């Protein structure tokens, strides 16, 4: 077992994929000699040559559109969008082609490609560098959407994504790039693609989280444990496909559910989770499914991101509300106070 960062795990995954399958190509902005602005592609051009890992002109629709054509031509492109908000120029290519080509052609063409996107906040980045954009992709049928929370998962989910016959949007929580963990990447302990992982078992409530929110949820669970509340923490790993089985089983066991996400809450993935959990577990629930999410605002400037991001305290406050009575809702009292 060695200490590995998520960044290293991702780099290793790309290396192993490049080595094992010559159809795999890595390209995007600055992924070549520079190794990417987060160094996830560090050394790939040096070690695999310019033919396998290369820089493109600066145009995201171009990168994704090129990848579509190359995947049609038999390659397995793994492209990088430099930051979350800089994938938006590629939105049409992603929504209208990447997501749909297999379906349009009744499976005669497929697009085994991966779109890697460093995403979400917590690193003090300026505007347009910290968007949590997972809902845009998760809402688009035909895409698989993945976001790892551990280095081990980063490695295996990326390997799975590259090997997948379908296009995968691979969201890398950039604030976790440098967190280290003990893991042996040679041995697969990770769950299969499409399955959630129970990161902490608990009796009193289920906290559903993914990507950047998983460590925060775990920290909150530790803090709650000190107060005598035993939280189960589920890490979704893949948003699409969604692992209803694990989530539903957990909530039916605990009877309470809290969803944590960094993204602005309105119509986010957390809304989907809350909606489906109450659909499937209604009579097991002792309290509504609550959400702790980013506010419905553009991502804040660096010095204010701490106020926006769901933190341990905000999660604990929500846990406190998991027993609340329908009337009056404390938030409505608050609202009266400011209206």
């Amino acid at each position, binding site marked *: 077992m060695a200490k590995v960062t998520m960044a290293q795990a991702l780099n290793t995954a790309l290396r192993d994929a490049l080595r094992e399958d010559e159809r795999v190509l890595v390209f995007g902005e600055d992924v070549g000699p520079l190794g990417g602005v987060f160094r996830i592609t560090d050394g790939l051009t040096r070690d695999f040559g310019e*033919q396998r890992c290369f820089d*493109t*002109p600066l*145009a995201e*629709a*171009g990168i*994704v*559109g*090129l*990848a*579509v*054509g*190359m*995947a*049609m*031509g*038999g*390659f397995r492109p793994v492209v990088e969008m430099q930051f979350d908000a800089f994938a938006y*120029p590629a939105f*049409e*290519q992603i929504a*209208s*082609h990447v997501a*749909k*080509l*297999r*379906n*349009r*052609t*009744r*499976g*005669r*063409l*497929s697009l085994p490609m991966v779109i890697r996107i460093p995403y979400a906040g917590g690193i003090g980045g300026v505007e347009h560098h910290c968007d949590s954009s997972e809902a845009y992709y998760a809402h688009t*049928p*035909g895409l*698989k959407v993945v976001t790892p929370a551990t280095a081990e998962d980063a490695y295996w989910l990326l390997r799975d994504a590259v090997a*997948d*016959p*379908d296009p995968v949007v691979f969201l890398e929580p950039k604030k976790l790039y440098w967190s280290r963990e003990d893991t042996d990447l040679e041995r697969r302990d990770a769950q299969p693609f*499409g399955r959630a992982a129970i990161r902490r078992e608990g009796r009193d409530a289920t906290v559903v989280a993914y990507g950047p929110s998983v460590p925060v949820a775990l920290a909150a669970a530790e803090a709650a444990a000190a107060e005598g509340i035993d939280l189960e923490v589920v890490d979704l790993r893949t948003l*699409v*496909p*969604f*692992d*209803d*089985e694990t989530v539903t089983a957990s909530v039916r066991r605990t009877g309470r559910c809290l969803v944590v996400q960094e993204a602005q809450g309105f119509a986010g993935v957390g809304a989907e989770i809350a909606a489906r959990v109450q659909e499937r577990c209604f009579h097991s629930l002792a309290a509504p499914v609550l959400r702790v999410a980013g506010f419905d605002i553009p991502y804040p400037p660096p010095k204010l991101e701490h106020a926006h991001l769901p933190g341990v305290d905000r999660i604990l406050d929500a846990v406190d509300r998991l027993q609340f009575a329908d009337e009056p809702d404390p938030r409505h009292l608050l609202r009266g106070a400011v209206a």
Partner: protein
Amino acid sequence: MSVKSLRQTVHGLLPSLTPVRFVAEDGTPVAKPPTGYAEPPVEALHEAYRRMVLGRRFDTQATALTKQGRLAVYPSSRGQEACQVGAVLALRPDDWLFPTYRDSVALVTRGIDPLEVLTLLRGDWHCGYDPAATRVAPQCTPLATQVLHATGMAESLRRTGGDGVAMALAGDGATSEGDFHEALNFAAVFRAPVVFFVQNNKYAISVPLARQTAAPALAYKGIGYGVRSEQVDGNDLVAVLAVLTAAVGHARAGHGPFLVEAHTYRMDAHTNADDATRYRNDEEVEQWSAADPLSRLETYLRARGVLTDEDVAAVREEAEAAAAELRAGMNADTAADPLELFDHVYAEPTPQLREQRALLAAELAETDEPTTLQTQED
């Protein structure tokens, strides 16, 4: 680089000042044949003529089907047959074609079953033919997006060692989209073997060319990417085939991408649902009638003595037979099973899709309908 060689580079990238033309509107050879392009062999012209007749007949048949309410919508390419036939004949079967919704005649010329071509417009499925087998991408609706796909495919072809070429078709309006720009740039930087073929038919739905661009011609876009460019009379099959053959040859030889603009005209409305009288006048349409690509080529070939009355009659007969077959084929029900909706979203349906499929299956069972529904059209 010296100023002199710079100047040469620049001039090597710019298109001819006026569109390349071999045959005048009246079907006579132009006084001064263009330099730098070889007139295609007569057999090729003969075959092109046949394809144009077949294409024209397919096109008018499809339009007729819309009038009879047997086809929901059809974007006619009447008047653009020289472009669409020229494009396909300039390619080898192992090259790839990336067409738009307007390019049905090109698809028919490529040998795709007309019924499969019309699958999209009949509403049966999004793409009716096998793109992998035909090496023709699905007809693309989101404008200019396919130009990037063609570039990616060309780059694949280059990397896999063969000498295959990809050709992207696009309209004048599509050149305004960002994807067009990104594709030309990527292709030039990677020296991908791709030909960008712009059918400038003077309108993007109702928007005339002058509102689309202020460039001297669309072909002048090439130099901004370092892409060789040419403009051609798009109603002169001889010129289209000559220039596209050169462009494809350039790409195939490893010299990188090539941009060709064909000046042509959309004789019909944008689709049967469009009302062209709102934005253009009859005189303009009539003027372009005189430039008809089919009669021009016929006159030219007849004058050269390589097209006989019998040839013409035989081709027309073939075209009529194909049209009759198409009409007959349109009677068959080809609608997909609703449950197929879940089959191709992913290689394997997700658990969520399996649930949803079961829901729909239960509904269909309840309503006692066969799972393959009758189409309303029938």
